[in-house]
């Protein structure tokens, strides 16, 4: 395998790549030499600029960041009710969320980047949770664990408020309470979202994009606050 330096500084077509029949080894060798030249400063300015812009900054670093973030989520030590007991099983021996770097529960919201709402949120507690969420530093994520803080669950009464009413939620984990495995699944879903390779929804999988049902005038222009229900109408009543 002979690679000369002349080939590198030619135009793009002259660079042997795997697709052009150069073979994997050759392509790798070319990239290696190019990287060495770059370190020496042998690559011309414009080409170096293009190289850096294309590869290093926008693609590689972002992905590395996302990879690192997704693999080191620090959940806040924040328990509300029954689900908190199951949440505690997450870093325990059987599930061992340390495999995915999310075992270190942080007591201070400023050190945490994942808020697991584990349990029922009462109206009295909601502003406290909102404040804790606001105190967390970006990037931050939230998982609504269990039926209560997703949809008020079995209670569905005057005292409980679903979490979506007062803060953004990234992942909902259903169950009453969800098994620790279910929460682990939710954490992994969140991880894949953070890392940018979230699986498609069912509409994408089954060619059903555009079949969403929109209630009322939700897509009217100029409407900022959307209430899809008429006033006085309560959902499911």
């Amino acid at each position, binding site marked *: 395998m002979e690679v000369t330096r002349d080939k590198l500084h030619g135009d793009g077509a002259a660079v042997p790549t795997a697709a052009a029949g150069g073979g994997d080894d050759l392509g790798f060798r070319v990239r290696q030499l190019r990287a060495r030249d770059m370190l020496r400063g042998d690559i011309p300015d414009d080409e170096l600029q293009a190289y850096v812009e294309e590869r290093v900054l926008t693609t590689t670093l972002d992905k590395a960041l996302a990879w690192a973030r997704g693999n080191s989520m620090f959940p806040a030590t924040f*328990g509300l009710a029954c689900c908190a007991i199951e949440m505690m099983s997450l870093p325990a021996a059987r599930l061992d969320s340390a495999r995915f770097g999310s075992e270190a529960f942080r007591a201070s919201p400023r050190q945490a980047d994942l808020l697991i709402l584990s349990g029922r949120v009462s109206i009295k507690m909601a502003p406290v949770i909102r404040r804790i969420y606001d105190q967390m530093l970006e990037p931050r994520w939230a998982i609504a664990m269990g039926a209560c803080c997703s949809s008020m669950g079995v*209670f569905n009464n005057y005292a409980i408020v679903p979490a979506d009413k007062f803060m953004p939620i990234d992942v909902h984990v259903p169950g009453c309470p969800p098994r620790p495995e279910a929460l682990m699944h939710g954490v992994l879903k969140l991880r894949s979202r953070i890392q940018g390779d979230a699986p498609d929804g069912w509409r994408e999988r089954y060619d059903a994009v555009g079949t969403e049902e929109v209630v009322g005038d939700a897509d009217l222009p100029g409407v900022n606050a959307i209430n899809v229900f008429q006033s006085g109408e309560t959902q499911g009543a």
Partner: protein
Amino acid sequence: MTDTTETPAGASAAISDYRKQEESITLSSSPATDAPDTELLTINMGPHHPSTHGVLRLILTLEAEVVRDVKPIIGYVHTGIEKTAEQKAYWKVIPVIERMDYVSYYFNAMAYCGAVEKLLDIEVPARAQYLRVIHLELNRIVSHLIWLGTSAIDLGAISVWWYCFRERETILDLFEMSSGQRIHTRYFQVGGVIEDVPRGWVERVRRFTKTMRTRADQYAALLDKNEIVLQRLRHTGVLDADTLLDLGVTGPLLRAAGNPWDLRKAAPYSSYDHFAFRIPVGATGDNYDRYRVRHAEIYESCDIIDQALDGLPEGPFITEDRKVALPPRHELATSMEALIHHFKLVTEGFRVPPGEIYYPIESPRGELGCFVRSDGSSKPARVHMRDPSFHNLQMTAPATRGSYIADLVATLAMIDPILGGVDR
């Protein structure tokens, strides 16, 4: 305890002002008389605090590091469970009631089902009573394991927590075998239990109790004579039995002060009088006794489970009264009467004769009582729970006034309040 740190020779010249100030601090229990230290400081602790075991909020009045006053503020997980129970048929109340004290869910169901059974005046079959006892005692062990693990974290020892949750998972597997759920199983039914235990379950429970005793020995080896545990727990949070009784405190906290009050012995329910077991009591009523009493209760629970497994009677697992209990599934295909009973139970539920009842049981935290008033309809007119966590929380201020704020954390861990039960 006066702390004068020795400085290494030759390093004294390099000591900064900060270091000097730090070394001048003495850890005596009487606060210094200088003006800045006698200033009272009111701080907020909770509702989001890792050591409050839930969403308890404490308003502390501190004099330097010494707690002068504690005001607990509750209601952060108020769920409206008692009100919700009034809107549901009697047998549909059970899942809601179970979610009250979410660590000891079998006990919530037992108190409620026992109360309704008393009102209905129905007999629970012996096998159901024994199965109830086994599940209750397994649940007591789970509750104590969660308490032990989280309290140990509060004291700075995380390794105990790993071991406790290992055993907890084993018990939850047993619950899953018998009912299909890990927690909030809805296994107890008015008139008995919802299903008989599957084949092989009894052997697995037996194997578990055998290992549980050795595991409890291991916890004791880790903690009983641990220097840090002794310093943090001994002679802290002391309250005598009379004060505790005045405050309405029951359960292991009262027993740690030397009063052997246990409803399993004092007013046996669900055939607890068939079993021989001892009641662990403490001597001084400090935090260390509270730890030892709960730890010793794990062994007694294992003994009760073993006896119940040995004497597990044959027979029905739920009452034969078709007006209360669902008919067996196979009868629905052959018997019109069974179909009618099934339909009436599922749509309307059973009616309970008018009256009111208070049914107390011994939960892992103390006297858990359920008050049910019936107006003759198929929905309870009022359901009220006397939750031990709520009453035990009364001792927070008397037990911690005058102690260090670190002792407050230890005392709170040993009180073991479950805020879901406090706020309901």
